[in-house]
């Protein structure tokens, strides 16, 4: 076994992270290779030097600050809040209703070649109420509707934070 192949395992050998087989292989190599044995000794020395660094203690106010920042987080409304009457719900409902009525009067869709799907699409694109993003996006309770999340996807989200 060559030294270059051993290099990657020296640290693992030093801090007992190698599997039994790898460890035996390393011991066999070390018994015949002074250079790797020296490296092992030096890495051991570095390892114990790193132990000399003292730990610091978080300041007494640390927990208080974390709790304060957590307490300052906006409280999410529950899913059931959707059903409780609120001015925003009433506003959105009336906007949608007005929009629908307006579309009914104004936007008689052209149906040039009688393709109903295309006509529907055209109507959807023209519907002015959909352009009113402000109303839609600021409608808080909708955000709380439970969304099906794939386990892997959620993990990805967590991991990449």
């Amino acid at each position, binding site marked *: 076994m060559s030294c270059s192949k051993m*290099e*990657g*395992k*020296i*640290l*693992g050998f030093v801090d007992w*992270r190698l599997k039994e087989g790898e460890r035996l292989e390393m011991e066999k190599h070390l018994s015949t290779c002074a250079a790797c044995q020296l*490296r092992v*000794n*030096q*890495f*051991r*020395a*570095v*390892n*114990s*030097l*790193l132990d*000399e*660094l*003292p*730990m*610091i*203690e*978080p*300041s007494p106010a*640390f*927990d208080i*600050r*974390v*709790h304060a*920042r*957590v307490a300052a*987080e906006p409280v*999410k409304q529950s899913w059931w809040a959707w059903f409780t009457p609120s001015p925003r719900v009433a506003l959105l409902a009336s906007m949608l209703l007005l929009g629908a009525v307006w579309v009914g009067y104004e936007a008689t869709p052209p149906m040039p070649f009688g393709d109903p799907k295309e006509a529907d699409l055209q109507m959807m694109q023209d519907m002015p109420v959909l352009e009113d993003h402000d109303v839609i996006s600021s409608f808080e309770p909708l955000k709380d509707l439970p969304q099906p*999340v794939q*386990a*892997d996807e*959620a*993990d990805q*989200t*967590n*991991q990449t*934070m």
Partner: protein
Amino acid sequence: MARSDVQLMLDVKAGDEQSFALLLHRYRSPLVNFLYRMVRNREQAEDLAQEVFLRVYRAREEYVPSAKFTTWLFRIATNLALNSLRDNRYQRMEISLDAPVTVDAEDGEEKLLDVAEKHPNIEQHLVEDARRKLIRHAIDKLPEKQRAAVLLHKYQELDYGEISKILNCSESALKSLLFRAYETLRVELAPLVAQQGKVG
């Protein structure tokens, strides 16, 4: 029996604030120390550690226990530290890393005035203090990703699989990262390493 990290996090997800306090208690010191050794500024380290806990809290509802809790926690911490170091880079360039190591007391350590009373053998203490400064200086000089790898490996005792997920690299890339870091440390700390060899 103490609840596992994952169980505590699931309890936080279910709305139990007490479990969050327990996670905070369990990880405040490891996180602050890891971040302190990453960014070398105590105040900034505490700010970042608070930010880590805040992000954990914010993500509670989406939490899925598919990976170890510590992997997730230190991944957030590492990303925040690396971003913070990148943001501070221009500022940091002004402070040369090659400046001579001085023996003035830094934060997180005892002040020399107190030392005289506590340590009758002040010479011995100064020697130890200088040693620690050399060690810290050597760690500081490592490239950021190597530094993070060493800190997670040495002080958090995370396994290779966890650290490679945290640093978003393969296990073999991590092993070579660690090898290079130890090579640098071995050279930087050569006088101490030689001493250590005589003692050991």
